[in-house]
């Protein structure tokens, strides 16, 4: 009787220990609730989009170095887009998305785009042109979900990408 009660008490105490520990952790987690606001999601998506675009340009430049002249300025502007977007993303230092930080300097081959890059200048330009148009469209589609200042930045980047697509298009010269 006495022994059983004691044993039960000990068992209860032992079992409750991890619960107490978990409880403490839970309280600690409540102090920094994970808040995923819509604009943060949009911002992350935009950052991912720019990162992918940069990897596409690098892959194309690796495959068709002759395009460096026209493509380098556009690639540089994508770098500016990415920097401006990332400057807006304020993440807690303990954020559990470490893959976002090194994404900028990630190797160009890390993207799926690197595997399917056209090898001729004309096809490569068309490939990037299409990617720019799609990226601009995607940004425009998210404009209404974000605060005004972010909307302005996204709209400006979309306009830049649309103009990239224009310059990547077939040169319109009278023959």
């Amino acid at each position, binding site marked *: 009787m006495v022994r059983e009660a004691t044993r039960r008490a000990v068992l209860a105490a032992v079992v409750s220990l991890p619960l107490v520990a978990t409880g403490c952790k839970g309280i600690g987690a409540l102090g920094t609730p994970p808040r995923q606001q819509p604009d943060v999601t949009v911002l992350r998506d935009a950052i991912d989009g720019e990162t992918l675009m940069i990897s596409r340009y690098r892959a194309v430049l690796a495959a068709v170095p002759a395009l460096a002249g026209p493509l380098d300025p556009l690639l540089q502007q994508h770098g500016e887009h990415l920097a401006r977007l990332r400057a807006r993303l304020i993440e807690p230092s303990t954020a559990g998305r470490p893959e976002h930080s090194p994404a900028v300097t990630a190797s160009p081959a890390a993207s799926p785009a690197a595997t399917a890059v056209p090898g001729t200048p004309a096809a490569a330009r068309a490939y990037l042109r299409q990617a720019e148009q799609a990226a601009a469209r995607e940004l*425009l589609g998210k404009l*209404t979900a974000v605060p005004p200042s972010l909307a302005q930045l996204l709209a400006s980047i979309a306009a830049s990408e649309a103009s990239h697509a224009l310059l990547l298009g077939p*040169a319109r010269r009278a023959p």
Partner: protein
Amino acid sequence: MSASIPPLAAGASARGAGQAAGRPAAPPAAVGALQAALAAEHAAVYGYGVAGAHLSGARQRAAAQDWQIHQASRDALAAMITALGAQPVAAAAAYRLPFPVRTGRAAVMLAAYLEDRVATAYLGVVALSEARLRLFGARALESAALRAAGWRGRTLAFPGLEAPAPGPVLSGSGTSQPAPGAPTAGSSSPGPASQSPPPTGPAGA
């Protein structure tokens, strides 16, 4: 949402539209942003008239086309402002040019400059909370950026947000890309020294 649209007596009163953050797009804010865009379109219509006079051939045709586009945009904005119960701002009788325009090269740079200004004005419309107006502003911003890129032969990283230095002198940047808006770099004259006065604005008659 808000109740009714307060009528504004004059375009000038739309200026004080800066509202506290977090509030839905009050009509005054919308009117103010649209008036600013309209003012930029007025300036563009005037400026393209100047630019076109110094261009020829395909470039002149491109300028005429863009001139018509800005006229249409001007009219559309005026109608939108009127629908909001406000008086559309009028065009100035004349505008001070940002730099002397006496050559085709300077005219092309003026066109790009006008588009930059228009882009900036539409960026103000993008800041509005009303989804319809925000998208309208974004599309207009994109169109202006496309025309600017066509004239300039190169793109900007942040159309509307950044303001390239006004002036006909392109700092040696090899614009090897043929500009769709202005096909060939045909009769480019030696770039005039840009005295770069203040940007285009309504001139005091």
